[in-house]
């Protein structure tokens, strides 16, 4: 595969075929961890790492993996990676691991990871699988960061914990929007992003 098409693959995964906005995968964690930018960032890094490593390993082993048990093999590899990430977080970033609670463990069931493994890495060489996985991981991250930016800014008046809009409850002028801190607000924001992407890429609209 040429440099050119690799680039197309990479950026296509971030925008045109964005896993959350277009494929609508990985919604659960996108709702759960986006109330603050810090947790969303850690979740993004963890997921990108897991999907990249999992896709590369699965692509390397694709000729060895028997077809009959391929899903089980993929899940085992993904689960192992997720447990490793979780253990490392608990050892070195205890606060963050507590904030993310069960959501790190739930990366295992994140459809993006399985989807890339089954849909791409099983049939493509490691280089391309890695590019594709990184693109998807970053596409997921882009949405998470956008959503958490809106939610933290309008819900808590801060970004990464630093006050941007001084809250009225603490003597400032900004009246916080409590809805933004609740998971449903992520639905509205993601819906807005989907609409935006469909305006930019009209090809994504469903045929009447």
């Amino acid at each position, binding site marked *: 595969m040429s440099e050119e098409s690799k680039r197309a693959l990479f950026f296509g995964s971030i925008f045109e075929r964005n896993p959350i906005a277009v494929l609508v995968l990985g919604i659960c964690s996108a709702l*759960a961890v986006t109330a603050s930018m810090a947790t969303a960032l850690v979740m993004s890094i963890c997921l990108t790492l897991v999907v990249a490593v999992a896709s590369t390993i699965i692509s390397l082993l694709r*000729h*060895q*993996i*028997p*077809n*009959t*048990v391929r899903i*089980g*093999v993929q899940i*085992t*590899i993904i*689960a*192992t990676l997720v*447990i*490793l990430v979780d*253990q*490392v977080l*608990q*050892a*070195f970033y*205890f606060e963050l691991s*507590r904030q993310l*609670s*069960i*959501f790190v463990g739930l990366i295992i069931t994140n459809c993006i990871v399985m989807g890339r493994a089954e849909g791409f890495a099983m049939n493509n060489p490691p280089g391309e699988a890695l590019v594709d996985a990184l693109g998807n991981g970053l596409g997921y991250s882009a949405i998470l960061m956008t959503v958490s930016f809106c939610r933290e800014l309008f819900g808590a008046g801060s970004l990464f914990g630093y006050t941007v809009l001084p809250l009225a409850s603490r003597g400032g002028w900004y009246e916080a929007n409590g809805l933004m801190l609740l*998971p449903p607000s992520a639905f509205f924001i993601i819906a807005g992003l989907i609409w935006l992407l469909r305006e930019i890429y009209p090809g994504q609209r469903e045929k009447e």
Partner: protein
Amino acid sequence: MAAAKESTSRVLATVLILALVCATLVAGAAVGLRERQEANRLLDQRKNILIAAGLYREGADVEALFDNIETRLVRLADGSLLPPEALDPTAYDQLKAAARPRTSRELSREEDLAGLGRLEKYAPVYLVRQNGELQTVVLPIRGRGLWSLMHGYVALTADFNTIAGVTFYRHGETPGLGGEIENPDWQQGWQGKQVYDRRQQAALRVVKGQAPPGEEGKHRIDGISGATLTLEGVSELLEFWFGPHGFKPFLQRLQREGVTEMTISGEQVDELPLVGQGSGT
């Protein structure tokens, strides 16, 4: 090649090798990182004791602050304190003690409001003094919620009846619903509530919706919507730990006597809770 890959023996071999490699990696990480994780957990516990006592400020040195807190062991049956030289209280592992027959007792169904199964004979308490005067006492509490055992600390002021603070630091309740017991804003609402009513019964519990203001609501804590079953567990664990099998004997003696009078001599300790942290058996 393609046919051989799908043969039963080949499939079995692949799966076995994969399972072995993955198991080794997972086990290696769990064992290799355990020490660090334990240290983190202990630090987190101490931090939560400080939070309950109202001593913690963001970014403060937990170890340095914790040095000002006196940890003692209480014999739950009669509320007497163990002398510090009998056993280092900081080395005592309450949960391990609760699991072992020698250092715990089985709770009957009527006694076991908090769903603990077994209760340790000795529990740690944390005494905070200012200028020699006992100011706050922090008690470890735990009990079954909807999905999990919830662990927390509750701090009482020097009247041994008014709540000074509370934290829940370890639980497996649903994030966003029952998990909101971690929410500092909700925990803030506990402050100033009274544990015992006029008849000296543990009356503090969580209600649905808002607790009534003033005198009427002094034994009532605000509910959290979507967390009813978790909070039932919280009410029950409060009733248990402030009841006769929990810290009630200790708190009543603390009101009448002083810490020194309540301390028994080393010989009077019938059975030493010899379960230190990390000790094998």
